[in-house]
C-alpha cells in the first residue's frame, strides 16, 4: 500500500519571528507504516508533531493528514488521530479508568460504548488490575501505558507518539516497544513517532527521517540508510601525532577517512578484509596502531554521517535537557 496518509510540503514553524524550529520540511507517511522522526533534543521533532496534531499553526507551508489540511480542516484531523504526548498528561488525582473515560468524553463517545472500550484498552495495556487506583500511585511505565490507552480511545487511523519511551528504564522501554508493535500488527494502524533513541528507531520504524536543526537530512528505511553509508566503519587510533589521513586513504577499498578527536573514522567496503591492510600500511611507515574497532553500520553511524555529530554529544545531562526543554517551551508559549 502506498497511499500517502500524511503529507508535508515546506512545513515551517518560526517562533518569536527569529527562532526557526522547523525549516521547510517535506515528507510523506504511507498507510500502515511506522514512521520515525529521529533527531537530538531541540531538533524540531515535537514542533513538527504539534503542527500535525493541529495544536500549532504552521508559519509557512502546508501538511495534510488523511487528506485533511491541518490548518483549514483541523477539526477533521482531530477526529481521526490519536496522540500520545511526551509528558504524562493523565490527571494524578483521578483513577486510571476515570482518565480514560475523560478522554472518551473529549471525543464525545457515549458512555456505554466508552466504558466497554476503556476496559478493552486497559486490558490491552495491562492496567486492568490498577484501573481504580489513582494515577499518583502509578509507575512511569504504567503512566506511559495509560497515555497509550487514552490515545487509542477514539480508534484513530493514525497514532502520534511523541518520544514514547522518554525517561523509561531499559526494560520498560523494550516492553513499550512490544505494545507499539502489537498496535501495528493488530490494528494495522499508521504510526508517527519521534524519538532520540537510535535503537528505538531501528527496532520499530519502517522508515526513518533524520531531522537536525529543523531540517530533514535524510529519509529512508533503516536498512537503506545503513546501506547508503556504503560499507563498514573502522575506527582506529595511532600512537604517533602526525596526520595519516592521506596514507590511509591510499589503501585499497578505503572509501573515506575522517579525523575526529584524535581517532580516524574509515569507511570501507569490506571492513574485515580492509582493516589488516590499513594496519599493515601504517606499520610499514613506522606508526603503531593502538586501538581498532570494526563496526557494521548502525543508525548511529547514519546519524553521525548525516549530522556530523554523535548522538551521544547531544544527549546531555538531565538538567541540561530540562533547561533546554523549558527554553523551547517558553519560546513556544
Amino acid at each position: 500500500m502506498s497511499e500517502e496518509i500524511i503529507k508535508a510540503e515546506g512545513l515551517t514553524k518560526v517562533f518569536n519571528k527569529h527562532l526557526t524550529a522547523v525549516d521547510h520540511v517535506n515528507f510523506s507517511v504511507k498507510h500502515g507504516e511506522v514512521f520515525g522522526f529521529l533527531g537530538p533534543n531541540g531538533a524540531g521533532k515535537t514542533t513538527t508533531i504539534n503542527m500535525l496534531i493541529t495544536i500549532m499553526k504552521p508559519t509557512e507551508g502546508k501538511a495534510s493528514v488523511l487528506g485533511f489540511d491541518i490548518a483549514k480542516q483541523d477539526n477533521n484531523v482531530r477526529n481521526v488521530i490519536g496522540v500520545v504526548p511526551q509528558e504524562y498528561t493523565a490527571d494524578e488525582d483521578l483513577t486510571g479508568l476515570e482518565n480514560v473515560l475523560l478522554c472518551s468524553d473529549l471525543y464525545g463517545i457515549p458512555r456505554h460504548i466508552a466504558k466497554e472500550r476503556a476496559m478493552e484498552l486497559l486490558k490491552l495495556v495491562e492496567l486492568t488490575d490498577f484501573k481504580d487506583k489513582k494515577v499518583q500511585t502509578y509507575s512511569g511505565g504504567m503512566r506511559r501505558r495509560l497515555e497509550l490507552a487514552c490515545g487509542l480511545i477514539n480508534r484513530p487511523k493514525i497514532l502520534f507518539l511523541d518520544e514514547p519511551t522518554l525517561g523509561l528504564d531499559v526494560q520498560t522501554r523494550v516492553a513499550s516497544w512490544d505494545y507499539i508493535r502489537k498496535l501495528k500488527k493488530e490494528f494495522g494502524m499508521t504510526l508517527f513517532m519521534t524519538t532520540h533513541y537510535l535503537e528505538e528507531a531501528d527496532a520499530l520504524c519502517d522508515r526513518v527521517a533524520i531531522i537536525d536543526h529543523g531540517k530533514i537530512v535524510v529519509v529512508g528505511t533503516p536498512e537503506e540508510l545503513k546501506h547508503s553509508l556504503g560499507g563498514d566503519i573502522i575506527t582506529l587510533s595511532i600512537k604517533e601525532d602526525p596526520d595519516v589521513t592521506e596514507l590511509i586513504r591510499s589503501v585499497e577499498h578505503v572509501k573515506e577517512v575522517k579525523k575526529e578527536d584524535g581517532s580516524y573514522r574509515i569507511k570501507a567496503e569490506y571492513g574485515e578484509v580492509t582493516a589488516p591492510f590499513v594496519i599493515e600500511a601504517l606499520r610499514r611507515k613506522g606508526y603503531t596502531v593502538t586501538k581498532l574497532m570494526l563496526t557494521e553500520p548502525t543508525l548511529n553511524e547514519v546519524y553521525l554521517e548525516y549530522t556530523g555529530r554523535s548522538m551521544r554529544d547531544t544527549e546531555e545531562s538531565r538538567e541540561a535537557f530540562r533547561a533546554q526543554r523549558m527554553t523551547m517551551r517558553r519560546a513556544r508559549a
Partner: protein
Amino acid sequence: MSKLNEHHPSKFHGIWALTKRELKKWLKEPIILLMAILQPVLWMGLFGKAMNIGNMFSSGSFSNISIPNITLPGYLVSPPYTSGNITIPSAILTQGFQQMFADPNFAPNVMRNIFGVGDYFSYMSVGMISFIVMFTTMFSGMSIVWDRRLGFLNKVLSTPVSRGAIIFSKVLNASLRSMFQATIILALAVLFGLQVSSTFSPIYILAVYAAIFLLCLGLSSVFLAVALRSTKWETQMAIVNLINLPLMFASNTFFPISQMPSWIQAIAQVNPISYLTDAIRRLTVMEFNASAVMFDFTFLGIFAVVFSFIGIALSWRYLTK
C-alpha cells in the same frame, strides 16, 4: 465531521467533560474546600465580630463627655415678653441624651444610616461572598497554568473539543464552586448571627446565584487570559496577592463607600466587587429595593459581557495560535 466521528458530539460536548474533571478533582480534595471556606469564616469571626461598631452608639461611649449648660436668649422662649436669658442645665440635657441612647432602636438606626444594615456583622459577612468569588476565580485561572505545564492542555487541544469549551469549562467550574461555597458561607453567617431583612424571601437566593455567576464570568475570563500568558504559576500567585487586598478594601465589602475619601470612592465605584456585594446585601440583609438591585445587575451584566469578551478573545487567540 459527522462521517469522521460516528457519535455526532454536539459542539459543546467538551464543556461538561472538562468541568466534571475539575469538580471531581475538587471533591476528592475536601481539604481545599475546607481551606477555601475557612478563610472567609475567620474574617467573619475575627473582623466581623471583634469590633461591635453598633455598640459605639450607646450611652457608655459618651460617659466622660460632659454636656454644657445651654443658655438661650429669653425671647426665644414663650411668652415673648420675657426678658433676659434662660439656661437649660446640663443635667437635663444629659438626661435627654441618655434617654435617646437608651432607646434600643437608636444604635441600629445610626448603623442603618451609615451602613444600610442594623448591625455590622450582617453587613460584612455578606461581603465574604464576594471575597470567596474573587479567590475562587483567581485560582481557577491559575489551574490552566498547571494544565499547560503538565501537557494536559495540549492533549485536550488535539481532540475535537472546541476551544471555546476549554475556556468556558474553566469559567463554569469557577462559578459552580463559588456558588457552592457562597451557600456554605451564607448558612454559616446565619448561624453566627446574620439577620436577614424582613423583605427577604428564599427565592432571592436564585438572584444571588445569578449575581455570583455574572461576576465569575467576567473575573475568571480575565484571570484565565492572564494565566494563559504567564508561563509560571509564581507570576500568577504574585498577581493574585497584589490585587486581592486593594480589590477588597476599595469596595463596599468592609466599609460603606460613602465614608471613604474621594480617591478610594472613585475606585470602589467601578470595582465590580462592590456591585456584587451591594446586590447580595439588598437581596438578603437590606430592605429590598428593586431599582437599586436592577442597577447592580446591569453593572454586573455589562462587566460580565465586556470582560468575558476580552478574556475569551485573548484566550482564543492564544489557543489557536
